């Protein structure tokens, strides 16, 4: 009994020691720093708060850096960036926000819905700019794009369904039934699905959804999708479908079904047409908002924005593999053309 008690005390000592180490490392943050004081010549401490390590988040983060540069801000002179990533463990998300806030963050830039939500709850005195989120309102950031949490602003990104469907309608009138892989666990995808349902109904398309939950499901799910008698794949953007796009592209090639997608990387990955409205661009836009805050604007006055820009990319190699000739008007209107035209080789 006594031995057991001694061991418990010893264990407790280890826990207390860990607490003490944490407190000691926290010593320099004992007095709250005056945030954003004299905005003009202050070097802003930006914290990137990320939930997981996926291609899209890396894209978005690169976009934010690009956007800050475009706004005339220089890394090291005007701002410094620290990145905190929960590596997919949702119980760590709160600790990320605490580490950033008590570490003297002047602004948080969140990537993904859960990190935005944790910031909404725990970082009420620090400006927060979110991106890589499909709907800030659904995440709880406010009632409308102008009536939102006073320290929070950011960019919502919905895929360019309507634009993509309009292109199909104009140039490929024979296509009526489109299909997409869908991961029900990703908030971004769920919101995108709702939007696609609405747009498809409006433009008279039928959509087939096949669910996939993990990367290993994707090859099978993609094969199943191609077997569902669809005329084209209209792939909704998401974490899973971005990282496993190769499998979708393979299945499409084998079944001779063209793929229309929304992320730029997927044009190189084998999609025929990409109506890019991607996380990199929305990250750039979020950075422009962050720059306004760094120049003294209040986030409360900056409305949440639905990111609307698109960029059309066509892939002639994919067209050749499918034995399709893309209408010249479509190719002309593309901002970017991948691959060589037929006969040029």
């Amino acid at each position, binding site marked *: 009994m006594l*031995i*057991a008690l001694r*061991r*418990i005390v*010893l*264990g*407790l000592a*280890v*826990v207390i020691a*860990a*607490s003490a*180490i*944490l*407190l000691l*490392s*926290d010593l320099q*943050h*004992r*007095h*709250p720093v005056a945030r954003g004081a004299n905005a003009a010549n202050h070097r802003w401490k930006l914290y990137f708060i*990320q939930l997981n*390590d996926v291609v899209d988040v890396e894209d978005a983060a690169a976009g934010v850096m690009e956007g800050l540069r475009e706004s005339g801000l220089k890394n090291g002179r005007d701002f410094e960036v*620290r*990145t*905190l*990533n929960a*590596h*997919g*463990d*949702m*119980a*760590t*998300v*709160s*600790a*990320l926000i*605490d*580490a950033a*806030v*008590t*570490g003297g963050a002047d602004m948080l830039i969140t990537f993904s*819905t*859960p990190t935005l*939500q*944790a910031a*909404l*709850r*725990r970082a009420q005195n620090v400006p927060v700019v979110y991106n890589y989120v499909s709907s800030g309102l*659904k*995440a*709880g950031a406010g009632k409308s794009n102008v009536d939102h949490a006073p320290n929070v602003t950011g960019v919502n990104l919905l895929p360019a369904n309507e634009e993509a469907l309009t292109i199909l309608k104009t140039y490929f009138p024979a296509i009526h039934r489109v299909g997409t892989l869908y991961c*029900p*666990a*990703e*908030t971004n*995808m*769920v919101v995108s699905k709702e939007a696609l349902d609405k747009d498809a109904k409006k433009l008279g398309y039928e959509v087939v959804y096949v669910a996939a*939950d993990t990367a290993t499901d994707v090859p099978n799910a993609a094969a199943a999708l191609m077997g569902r008698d669809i005329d084209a794949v209209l792939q909704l953007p998401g974490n899973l479908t971005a990282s496993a796009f190769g499998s979708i592209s393979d299945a499409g090639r084998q079944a001779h079904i063209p793929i229309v997608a929304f992320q730029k990387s997927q044009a190189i990955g084998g999609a025929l047409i990409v109506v890019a409205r991607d996380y990199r661009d929305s990250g750039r836009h979020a950075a422009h908002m962050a720059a306004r805050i760094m120049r003294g604007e209040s986030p409360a006055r900056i409305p949440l924005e639905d990111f609307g820009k698109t960029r059309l990319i066509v892939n002639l190699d994919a067209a050749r593999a499918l034995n399709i000739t893309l209408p010249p008007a479509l190719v002309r209107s593309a901002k970017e053309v991948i691959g060589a035209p037929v006969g040029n080789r």
Partner: protein
Amino acid sequence: MTLLISAWTIGLILSLLALGVYISYRVFAFPDITADGSITFGAAVAAAMLTRGMNPFAASGAAFLAGTLAGACTGVLHTRFRINQLLSGILVMTALYSINLHVMGQSNLPLLSARTLTTYAERIGRRLSGGDTAVLLGWPVSARELGSLLLIAAVVLLVAIAAYLFFRTNLGSAMRASGDNAQMIRALGVSVENMIILGLAISNGLIAFAGALLAQYQGFADVQMGIGMVVWGLASVIIGRALVGSDSLGSALTGTIMGSVLFRLIIAVALRWGLNPNDLKLVTAIFVFGALVLPMALGVRTSRPRPSGRPRPDGLIAR
């Protein structure tokens, strides 16, 4: 300081998960991975009720019940349908994924404007600190954080005492014995199958309850929040065993809770040191290793030599 308090709070919340894992893994030697699904199930049920304005205590209780249901399913699959232990857990966990989506109606529910246990915690914190922020050893701490920690600590204490008392009743002893020596307990006329079902129900009830608390504390429930949780639960149980070095019931329960808190503290230290974010998990692993071998290095004996060489299998089971 805020980081310390939130690490303790999340550590204590997840210690309920660890206690659940302790029951399945140590008491019954049942590797139950239902946990990944049931923690989200608890969060989902609580969140769905809270966003409809229901009482937070009722919502948390309902989460517990939902978890017991999930655990009982795993138990039934294993005992009645003779499905392998791991597979029973995997099946229920997989099914729960879809169920959680249905329960929430979407993959993520924000609880920022709902009345939750955190609302009560904030009230407690305000009463104690007399305002929005308290000053603790010179660090400013928000009343909500302080209140949350106190509330959660009280809840965990109650649960631990209840578990201790329960496992000393006739039923609880029978349960432990069926994990220890199924042959013997069957000979005494106890249904081992029923014990397993009941044990897994309690285990997953606690885990789902942990999920409900976590969702309320963090301000959202997300269908992916359970991923990898069973691993953290197991880690806490094993760290706890190493910390207290004893299999007696009281030590094991205390150790499990300490293990969970220690684990979260270590993550917080790694975060605070501002290392390369890609190294977070590596550093966490190294720190845990350090915390486990440090007592040994300091010359503290981790286990007493056994009297008179009575051989004993290394304890999977609490005694």
